[in-house]
């Protein structure tokens, strides 16, 4: 999935439509938050009171849920999101060295955005390809056995379209 650009002018209408689509869904909080983030790229602060009203919970409750889960972001990410697996099976195959290279190449740390503003770097704890690490995902597309050279090539390839 591509993280879309946001256009805050259409945010309220999008949020309203998403809420409407979840009327009657039991335990709708996470599905709503996913739907909002999938279409707007993040959960805008303005959406919080709307969600709270719709679900009949406090704003603090909605805010608490958004901040509890690493997946939800309150700020838009860059055009591309690189997630690098930092868990044990990838560690055993050189993920730490790859992480060093990636941070240096992008000029940012985990949870940060590259010096050119085009790539957000996130850690991830296992992508389920643990036999063939080190593994990364770029915009939800998985890549295995990522050497430093392969990473550079993948980054260059997404640079072409960014």
């Amino acid at each position: 999935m591509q993280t879309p650009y946001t256009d805050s002018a259409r945010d309220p209408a999008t949020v309203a439509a998403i809420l409407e689509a979840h009327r009657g869904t039991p335990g709708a909080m996470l599905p709503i938050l996913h739907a909002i983030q999938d279409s707007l790229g993040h959960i805008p602060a303005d959406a919080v009171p709307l969600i709270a009203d719709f679900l009949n919970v406090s704003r603090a409750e909605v805010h608490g849920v958004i901040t509890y889960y690493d997946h939800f972001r309150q700020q838009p990410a860059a055009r591309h999101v690189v997630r690098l697996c930092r868990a044990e099976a990838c560690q055993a195959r050189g993920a730490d060295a790859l992480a060093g290279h990636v941070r240096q190449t992008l000029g940012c740390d985990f949870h940060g955005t590259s010096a050119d503003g085009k790539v957000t770097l996130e850690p991830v704890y296992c992508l389920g390809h643990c036999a063939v690490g080190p593994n990364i995902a770029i915009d939800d597309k998985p890549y295995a056995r990522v050497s430093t050279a392969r990473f550079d090539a993948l980054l260059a390839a997404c640079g072409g379209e960014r």
Partner: protein
Amino acid sequence: MTCTIFVPRDSTALALGADDVATAIEAEARRRGIDLRIVRNGSRGMFWLEPLVEVATPAGRTAYGPVDASDVAGLFDAGFFDGGAHPLSLGLTDALPYLQKQERITFARVGITDPVSLDDYLAHDGYAGLRRALSMAPGAIVQEVIDSGLRGRGGAAFPTGVKWKTVLGAQAVQKYIVCNADEGDSGTFSDRMVMEDDPFMLIEGMTIAGLAVGATRGYIYVRSEYPHAIAALNEAIANATAAGYLGIDVLGSGKAFHLDVRKGAGSYVCGEETALLESLEGKRGIVRAKPPLPALSGLFGQPTVINNVISLASVPLILQKGAAYYRDLGQGRSRGTLPFQLAGNLKYGGLVEKAFGVTLRELLVDFGGGSASGRPLRAVQVGGPLGAYLPPSRFDTPLDYEAFAAIGAAVGHGGIVAFDDTVDMAKQARYAMEFCAAESCGKCTPCRIGSTRGVEVMDKIIANQDRPQQIHLLRDLCDLMLAGSLCAMGGMTPYPVLSALDNFPEDFGGSDAAPDQKAA
């Protein structure tokens, strides 16, 4: 004659370029005017061979791998679509020793069928278990699962049928079946493979569970890191619903079963069953105190079966073939098979379904082929991030819940992560504490504060500051976490930490790391 070529759609195969290979095969066939049908099957689980391309021949399916898109023209030149010889030829897939030596009973279809084709599923024994279950009383279905000896595959190994019996006996207007598909453990991917490569098996298992306990609604809670699994499940659920295998009247039985997929949001502790239920209800994933058991008061306060993917996916086979078929495999109180996941620094990493009792060495050496780096294996972590690190002197331990408990380890979800001799075990111990600190739900102090303190203590040990005192402190912290945590997050983080310290003291400053003599 049209030939049939199989190119996996499993996400690990995709991560290794399977889509590019499929596209290249299609283009090359068109260019040469050859009539081919490409089936996107699941993965056989031999990941070092992915993308593994198979060709249907009169003798059986013939394998080529690992295939790169750049190999495709050469494969055509060699006439691979008729099973022609090529440097990447592996012969008949089913004759490959890695597969031959397994007991693939739950994973029997995985890698063979098109995962979202209901016809394929039906042609390979699919829904035979449900058909039998529909002819049985709920209590008899539960008894069959109890008799099979199946224990929960998510980690705690609680007997599945016994849990179901509690839910069957509970009185409620609405009961639920919840599938724990959070698979947060590093080094595990068997749940992912079931969901991506044979999703109907999980759907069938949940439907049978619904019949058994009287639940008409089910949820599959899948981690957000698994987008391909979510897509495959949704496609399979739509197909099963369209064909009457799900919905208000399952196969004309008058019984309803509705199934929905819910996406997690990147929290490891949401794999803990009560935290998962909180999350499904739309809250922060904080662990609930037990009792009440989820079986009596689970999702939305109603009686709920919550089981791991593999637990539920084992059920169709048990119903189809009978409890004895399953129970006759395995040893001791560990019955049936476990899909082991060989991960990390191994030459031949992948999925190996074996009956309980196989030794770690057989898995690491006979299947895994030793380290991928060619260096000696030094440590193996079994059972995810909360599992113990074992040294080679433990490699003859049979995989069996009780045998592992006896050496202070846990089989868990069957993930086996191998490290070669470049591993620094103090660093791994620090990582275990760091992971706990990051993922703790925060409900209890030993876990929330203890893990943060644990990271600080490990930093001092690594920096060689007051090592004997710090190691003493580390052991105290671990004791506190073991004894005072509400769930296994805090309660088991000491496993990787203490096992690293006890089995690899040389990485913690040698004699400093020895258990405190005065305390003994």
